[in-house]
């Protein structure tokens, strides 16, 4: 009697908090090139180990090694580097614009550029992404005009979304980019629905869903996996594990599961983990998964292991919950530098060409910003009309809204 212990709640904690010394020594990083590349029609039961490993192509010396290497030409790799550099320059300028009061809010990609930029190159015209707020590389690498993105960020008179949405919650249907909600996880299951519709319609197009490590805890994540599994939807389900959900480390959403990719195993989904800071590895895995979807072999779950170097958003200060030096200690390095070194090692790029490209990219971003600012910024210059606020709630405005619009004097 009375020998049972008092119960206690287990609340996971990150290894290190501010003031401590970052230590990722317990994060197992497999050697580049060491993970097999199975055929796309593999039985998912035969590749369960891929959910616990990390597919990597670029080694410490910057060489592309192993069975996942070779999916891109030198020219394509130089283009990929430029996309990542453009996204980084875009982020830097928009982050500054927010500090200058030209917009209310911004979210940058620092450290995660490879994920969306490389994935975009594995898609075909007509495919549809259901992104989160940190995949602007899908737009940049897809050729969407930066000035349009900035018009949206500035909520100016040329804003394609009429000032209705938070900055960076883009929508670009023609570029395969679904309207971003800002709610967490909701888009993941919508991607599955879009893919099911393509299958129902005997189409050839596929969908890609995106979610962060923290949002995998939402019901919609599980809803997406069960629908994708049941109907073998032609969709690629992407989890971007950047280690931090605002202040919450990834262990809170992961719980007792070994990895986020392993969540897919119970649904019978091929589930792969990939080095998210390795442009070549991201592209190779994305191509593998998109080919599966296109050949009607069904969905793939991919976990991109990366690190959010910057703050969650301009409303966040990460020094309150993680050591400042943590990003330096991150063992998978910087995606831009890694691809740059790879290209230099191959003799198809140089420090000088890189510096030149940096300057060109920044010039392009600044030119786009000038043009966007000519249409106004959040608090000055051109702005969307108040009338726009009442438009578009329905295809046809119902009488009660018309009355309210009249009351508002517009």
């Amino acid at each position: 009697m009375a020998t049972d212990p008092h119960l206690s709640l287990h609340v996971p904690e990150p290894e290190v908090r501010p003031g401590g010394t970052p230590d990722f020594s317990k994060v197992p990083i497999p050697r580049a090139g060491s993970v097999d590349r199975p055929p796309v029609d593999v039985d998912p039961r035969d590749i369960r180990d891929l959910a616990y490993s990390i597919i990597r192509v670029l080694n410490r010396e910057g060489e592309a090694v192993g069975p996942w290497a070779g999916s891109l030409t030198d020219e394509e790799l130089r283009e990929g580097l430029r996309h990542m550099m453009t996204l980084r320059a875009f982020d830097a300028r928009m982050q500054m614009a927010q500090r200058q009061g030209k917009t209310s809010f911004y979210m940058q990609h620092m450290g995660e550029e490879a994920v969306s930029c490389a994935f975009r190159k594995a898609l075909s015209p007509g495919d549809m992404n259901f992104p989160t707020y940190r995949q602007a590389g899908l737009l940049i690498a897809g050729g969407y005009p930066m000035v349009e993105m900035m018009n949206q960020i500035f909520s100016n008179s040329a804003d394609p979304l009429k000032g209705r949405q938070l900055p960076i919650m883009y929508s670009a249907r023609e570029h395969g980019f679904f309207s971003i909600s800002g709610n967490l996880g909701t888009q993941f299951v919508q991607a599955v629905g879009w893919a099911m519709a393509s299958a129902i319609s005997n189409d050839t197009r596929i969908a890609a869903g995106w979610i962060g490590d923290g949002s995998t805890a939402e019901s919609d994540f599980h809803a997406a996996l069960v629908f994708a599994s049941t109907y073998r939807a032609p969709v690629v389900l992407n989890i971007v594990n950047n280690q931090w959900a605002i202040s919450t480390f990834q262990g809170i959403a992961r719980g007792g599961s070994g990895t986020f990719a392993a969540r897919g195993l119970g649904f019978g989904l091929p589930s792969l983990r990939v080095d998210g800071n390795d442009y070549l590895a991201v592209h190779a895995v994305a191509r593998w998964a998109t080919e599966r979807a296109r050949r009607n072999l069904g969905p793939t779950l991919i976990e991109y292991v990366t690190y959010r170097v910057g703050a969650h958003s301009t409303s966040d200060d990460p020094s309150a919950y993680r050591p400042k030096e943590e990003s330096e200690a991150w063992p998978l390095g910087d995606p831009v530098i890694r691809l740059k070194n790879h290209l230099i090692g191959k003799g198809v790029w140089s420090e000088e060409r890189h510096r030149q490209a940096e300057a060109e990219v920044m010039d392009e971003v600044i030119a786009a910003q000038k043009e966007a600012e000519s249409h106004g910024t959040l608090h000055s210059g051109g702005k969307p009309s108040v009338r726009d606020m009442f438009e578009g709630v329905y295809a046809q405005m119902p009488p009660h809204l018309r009355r309210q619009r009249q009351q508002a004097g517009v």
Partner: protein
Amino acid sequence: MPRMTMIEAIRSAMDVAMGRDGTVVVFGEDVGYFGGVFRCTAGLQQKYGKSRCFDTPINESGIVGTAIGMAAYGLRPCVEVQFADYVYPAYDQIVSEAARIRYRSNGQFTCPIVIRMPTGGGIFGGQTHSQSPEALFTHVSGLKVVVPSSPRDAKGLLIAAIEDPDPVIFLEPKRLYNGPFDGHHDRPVTPWSKHPLGEVEDGHYAIPLGKAAVRRAGGDVTVLAYGTMVYVAEAAAQETGIDAEVIDLRTLLPLDLDAIVASVSKTGRCVVVHEATLTSGFGAELAALVQEHCFFNLEAPVRRITGWDTPYPHAQEWDYFPGPARVAEALRAAMEG
């Protein structure tokens, strides 16, 4: 003209819509092989195949979330949530997503979906099979909300809802599925086969959203009702001998304000009835609109007869349900000023 129950009429609407438009798909829990727990989708899978009518996992947010994705693609999903009481896991998808996609994408993406749900009480369903959550949806900009009260209306309104370019919440009063119900729970049910509104055309017809119907013409007092309460109000008028004009709103949003104003301007008195709880219920909106638009015609305060502000009880169902006696009392009070 054929006679149909409300179930058969709803099934006929989906059948007609699926037959005319290959992009209409129907899915939900138990909806495919079995044909729905209320049988509203019976036979559709056999007729249109498993890719156009199918069973889903038990995940309402999954049902609505995938419907939104399908709509973004270009299909017209008409999904079933097994009971309106089960819709809450999907509420985020409905409120934050379906309702706003047209607006936030400036029309690049739209959401022409219908979410069908059995609503309301009267079947001893307790808290989880009796709720009337219409106000949770009328309060959300971007949604349309329909509550039919007869087989004929159900079919025409559901076809209009499926053909509508925006998301429609389609609440089916489950107590009306097999016959009109006037609140006299101790009397035998009249089947739709013996009611004129059980006459339903076989083919395609649409009843436009946003048009009310006068169910009983009268000059003394206007009763604003929808769903099951239409028949309760008719019974109360009959039993009190008060010459009430009963308006069946049919669509709560968009609302037929013209019909309301025309009637109340004529009668000078108004009683609002619904099954849902009182506070912040749709009756508050109706009372406010009547006050704004008919103030100088009113000869008595607008009264609301609704479900009590408690969770829907099981054993005390008929104490909770706003039956004909309570409506009659409100009619008499309205006549006295």
